[in-house]
């Protein structure tokens, strides 16, 4: 079993400290200062800049700029949609990989990790080359009146590409460990495939699935590189929140830029909190039901 699936099931045992006090102090100081300098100070700075001129200016920056408003709306549409599609894909991929034997299976598993390995900019370029006006499918789609590049479908494609592995990666080791016996038992008791999935498979994988969805969502909200290449950066049309932050910053509109940035940071914090809450819930739920055999 891969450590990935066990991460949230394991509770760390208490360790006996054997290192000298000064080494412990040094390591703790290093860790704390890294967190403070790399995470806490920038985060506080973002909020300080955004709210520095008061809550009304912040509100004006967010709400009274139609382009910013559109960017927020676009991000809040594209991200959930790509998360939804990737959840469906992730479950299907994990199912196929853990329940069936077929030629090319290991290749599929490897390809699944490609989005993690490849630079998002390269991914964006691939889509431009495929669907752009000079690309392979672009002109044909154009004739059908479908615009992909420099429009929202490209944003969706790019976001889906970079977040593709999250759900599947979370599910595969778990479903491997669970095996298919419970599912076979359900079928032998008369369940149809739909009942089997909703009543047996899903409850068994729900925590890992939620975990994958949260991670997928965090990445989808913040995606910049791939989206940057395919969006064409059209204000009020294809600018997502991260792109809007960059554009406002380039235009020397620091308060506006930091306002959107702080909103993104808030969304990220919300994601983090839901992850934390989820881990608490899991810890409360598992002890009774965890298989000991």
């Amino acid at each position, binding site marked *: 079993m891969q450590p990935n699936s066990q991460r949230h099931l394991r509770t760390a045992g208490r360790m006996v400290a054997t290192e000298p006090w000064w080494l412990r102090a040094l390591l703790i100081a290093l860790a704390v200062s890294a967190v403070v300098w790399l995470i806490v100070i920038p985060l506080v700075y973002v909020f300080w800049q955004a709210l520095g001129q008061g809550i009304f200016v912040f509100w004006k920056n967010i709400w009274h700029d139609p382009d910013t408003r559109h960017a927020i709306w676009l991000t809040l549409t594209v991200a959930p949609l790509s998360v939804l599609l990737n959840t469906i894909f992730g479950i299907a991929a994990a199912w196929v990989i853990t329940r069936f034997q077929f030629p090319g299976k290991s290749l599929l598993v490897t390809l699944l990790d490609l989005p993690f390995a490849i630079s998002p900019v390269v991914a964006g370029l691939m889509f431009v080359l495929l669907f752009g006006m000079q690309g392979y499918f672009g002109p044909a789609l154009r004739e059908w009146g479908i615009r992909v590049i420099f429009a929202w479908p490209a944003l969706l494609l790019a976001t889906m590409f970079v977040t593709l592995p999250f759900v599947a990666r979370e599910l595969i080791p778990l479903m491997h460990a669970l095996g298919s016996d419970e599912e076979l038992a*359900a079928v032998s008791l008369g369940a149809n495939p739909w009942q089997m999935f909703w009543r047996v498979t899903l409850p068994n994988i729900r925590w890992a699935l939620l975990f994958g969805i949260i991670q997928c969502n965090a990445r989808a909200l913040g995606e910049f590189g791939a989206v940057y290449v395919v969006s064409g950066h059209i204000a009020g049309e294809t600018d997502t929140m991260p792109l809007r932050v960059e554009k406002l910053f380039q235009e020397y509109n620091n308060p506006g830029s930091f306002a959107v940035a702080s909103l993104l940071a808030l969304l990220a914090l919300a994601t983090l909190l839901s992850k934390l809450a989820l881990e608490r819930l899991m810890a409360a739920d598992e002890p009774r039901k965890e298989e000991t055999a």
Partner: protein
Amino acid sequence: MSISIRHVFKRFGAFVALDDVSLEVPTGKLVALLGPSGSGKTTLLRIISGLETADRGTILFQDEDVTDRRVRDRHVGFVFQHYALFRHMSVFENIAFGLRVRHTPKAEVTARVEELLTLVRLDGLGKRYPAELSGGQRQRVALARALAVRPQMLLLDEPFGALDAKVRQELRTWLRRLHEEMHVTTVFVTHDQEEAFEVADQVVVLRSGRIEQVGTPENVFDHPATPFVMDFLGNVNVFHGRVQNGQMHLGPFQMDFPDYPHDESKAATAYVRPHELAIDRTQVTPTALPARVLQLNPSGSVVKARVASDELGIELTVDLVREQAATLQLQIGDRVFVSARNVRVFMPSDFTI
């Protein structure tokens, strides 16, 4: 509901799991599929259930061909080796599952589940989760879950394999009693010959994807059809010798073997079960074998004696009844005579005696 298996073949890649297997399981009988691992017994069970499909051959329930019928339409109760209980459901919900997916009315579900909890002696444990149960309790939940939908037959894969000896013994007796109450056709897989003999009406011995012998426990035990069956059914003493003119020759010893009256001398193997050997202080018959006592181990109701024959250069195991052991007063190193009450001779290349 009777089961007919006709000329079933199954291979996994290059491995032949079942090689032309045909078997009849009469209605209401309790049948054990017995064999070592890799003999195809579990594959056969899964093919009956529909969890696995045969490459060739047909499966009939009563007179109906179910070969192409899906698992969930076969209406069989299947109990998995490791129970496969739904870990996120309570015991109650586990047992209710089959009824729920068939949209049985709530009141009926509750009544049936309570009835089954009583049947498997788990009253009051309905709210527990599988992880909170002992192995034996889990096994009974698995059984209740399979029985809840009133299946046409019950199929059990190594039902007691993962339990400790005492619980296993209890559950065997209990399963036998349960079967007598319900009379539902039952097939179970086991590699434990004792279990098969104790529980089943009929024993099917499998080896490398083929059926070696089918019969009642007494029949199979007393008249094993092949050396494999003889060997598999527990400890045996093996003598290698030759047969000629109705006699079997074992070194300087010989005994009657009327099944082979021919002149030509042929290699043969004689098998004698430990309880079919007797130990005496004196040479009571001319064929008794002089031997030396090597080891004495009390084991349950018998004393297992290990003796060596210097003439034949072999060691034998003899089961002595306690009283007999007490009268003989054997000591390690004692000189004794071993005689056989019953000998089975098998000739290689000709197993059909």
